[in-house]
């Protein structure tokens, strides 16, 4: 059995590490590209949410590359993600692919089924060994996210254009090689200091922008036009509402982002008082938090037809009226072009600068 899986940011790195520990055969699909998106768009329903289209493209490319099994996670709603695996399965079969589909439903729904699936993924290992592998792999995943977070926060200070990105690559390579918990700990420290290796100029007082939205488009630079790198290189200090391990983690604490789910929900309450699936309420909560922390603006990434983000977007005008924080919503799908995104980002940055100058002149 050769497993494949969809891409999502650094997920491939995390899963390769885990599957190697489990001695499970796997194939990483080619990096998400225009071809991937076209494949997905061709096979998925027209107004399926964008992540579904892209991941179908990934899976097709993974199967074409020789995989004969797919691993996905399930869910219990209310947003569409919980139904992805089922739909991917049907679409790929109707398209003529033959493979085994392994869907990990949340262990809280059916713990026995969950363990059975784990054994299927790692037939050579005992449940205890699987547990250990996940535990150690998890540490590495958190370290990868911590590095990413540091990159986001410091890229705006780099002296030489592109340094941070180059150092990020190096840092990930360092982490990639770590195996034991001790090595991971050491690699983490090293990786973080590698990022410091990029020359910095902490003199400037950058614009601060928070990035929120649906997790998939937030985490996958291949489909969000790598806007974080673009903005960072424009000298903008960034913070993001969700990291991979925050999203995977079952606990309500978010190890990398920092705020707990409850804190975020509480911040959202006056504007969106109930969860709505996906990242909807979190998006709203983070906009409020960013406003409170004095950020200059927020960018929301919304995959076309994404229900939770549309709900969030619908209550943003009220936040804008009351907290006076500008939010730019970027709708992302297969028809979105990079040029259009860049134009809008530039206009937004101009707006934020002029707003800040106005504020300064009032104070001064």
């Amino acid at each position, binding site marked *: 059995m050769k497993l494949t899986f969809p891409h999502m940011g650094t997920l491939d790195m995390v899963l390769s590490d885990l599957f190697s520990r489990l001695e499970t055969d796997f194939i990483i699909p080619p990096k998400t590209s225009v071809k991937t998106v076209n494949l997905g768009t061709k096979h998925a329903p027209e107004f399926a949410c964008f992540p579904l289209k892209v991941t179908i493209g990934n899976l097709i490319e993974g199967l074409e590359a020789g995989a004969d099994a797919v691993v996905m996670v399930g869910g219990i709603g209310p947003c569409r993600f919980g139904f992805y695996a089922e739909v991917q399965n049907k679409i790929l079969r109707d398209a003529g692919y033959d493979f085994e589909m392994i869907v990990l439903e949340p262990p809280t729904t059916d713990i026995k089924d969950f363990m059975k699936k784990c054994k299927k993924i790692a037939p050579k290992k005992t449940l205890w060994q699987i547990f250990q592998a996940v535990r150690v792999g998890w540490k590495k995943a958190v370290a990868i996210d911590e590095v990413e977070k540091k990159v986001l926060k410091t890229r705006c200070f780099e002296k030489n254009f592109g340094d941070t990105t180059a150092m990020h690559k190096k840092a990930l390579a360092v982490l990639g090689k770590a195996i034991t918990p001790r090595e991971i700990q050491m690699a983490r420290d090293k990786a973080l200091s590698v990022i410091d290796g990029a020359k910095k100029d902490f003199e400037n007082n950058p614009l601060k922008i928070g990035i929120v939205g649906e997790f998939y488009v937030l985490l996958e630079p291949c489909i969000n036009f790598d806007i974080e790198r673009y903005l960072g290189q424009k000298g903008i200090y960034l913070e993001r509402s969700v990291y991979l391990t925050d999203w995977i983690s079952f606990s309500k604490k978010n190890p990398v982002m920092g705020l707990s789910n409850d804190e975020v929900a509480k911040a959202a309450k006056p504007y969106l008082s109930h969860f709505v699936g996906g990242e909807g309420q979190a998006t709203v909560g983070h906009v409020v938090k960013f406003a409170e922390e004095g950020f200059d603006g927020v960018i929301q990434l919304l995959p*076309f037809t994404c229900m939770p983000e549309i709900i969030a977007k619908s209550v943003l005008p009220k936040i804008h009226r009351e907290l006076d924080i500008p939010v730019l919503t970027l709708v992302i799908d297969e028809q979105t072009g990079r040029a259009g995104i860049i134009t809008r980002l530039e206009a937004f940055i101009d707006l934020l600068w002029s707003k800040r100058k106005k504020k300064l002149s009032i104070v001064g």
Partner: protein
Amino acid sequence: MKVGVPRALLYYKYFPLWETFFSELGAEVVLSSPTNKRILNLGTEAAENEVCLPVKIFYGHVISLKDKVDALFIPRIVSVEGGAYTCPKFLGLPDMIRALDVDLPQIISPTFNLKLGLREFYRSVYELGGFFTKNLFKIVMAFQKGLNKLDSFENLLHDGHLLNEALAGRFFPAPKGRLRIGVVGHPYNIFDQYISMNLIERLQKKGIKVLTAEMVEEEVVDKIVTGLQKKLFWTYEKDVVGAVFHWLDAKSVDGIIYVLSFACGPDSLIQILIEHEAKQQGFSVPIMPIVIDEHSGEAGLVTRLEAFVDMMSRKVGSEKS
């Protein structure tokens, strides 16, 4: 007290219950007028562009109603059965309306979530009744009466009456033609004559007997959806899938029209289940999806209907001879 109920979304599911409950508690129920161009425009102007058409229409009804009432009833209907949700949009609806930059009357928006069990559910009923009376007994009685009303309404549907006729309490004889078409989709699309561009009436005028998902018995639907590989976690989509699978299997209709909202979340995935099943059954019953948004034109619909009905008549004709 005048309580406004927008004639949109879940009005099509629960209005008999709501109306009875409020009137029993001494409130006057004010319903917005049937969807028209003005309401549609009000909605599309006020709502964010990405919102699905039925929710935009809901916005329109709210705005057209807001100055005529003391309060608006916009419940947050999270779940109407254990183990499943409605649509995420219904979970956020009251907040979306509150975010509008217009003067709104008081909004009554209790949360109904059967996933949390019957006790929580009744707590919400008491909370809702509490707006009108402090008399708990009266609230319970009013709700019971409402449930009975809802029951008899749903019985009418199971007996084969169309939802709009059952809501209005006026019934017309079904056409006597040979063709039978199943029409599925959200009731707020199909039975809002403005949105559906009189789809059902158009079919009936051709002498076609129209069947809808509401007419399929619950037990049949339950049996089908429990047999699904993956549990469906959207209640209203279960009805759609149940009806279509049943019709495909029993071959009790000559064709199926599946009405979807453009950019509807649940619809986009359910469509795949339906198409997959139709393929498994060798496409023996033709299915036509109709996607509706605010730009849908009547001309397009008419042409497609004609073609679909023609094809079915030919098919039925050749099978009979």
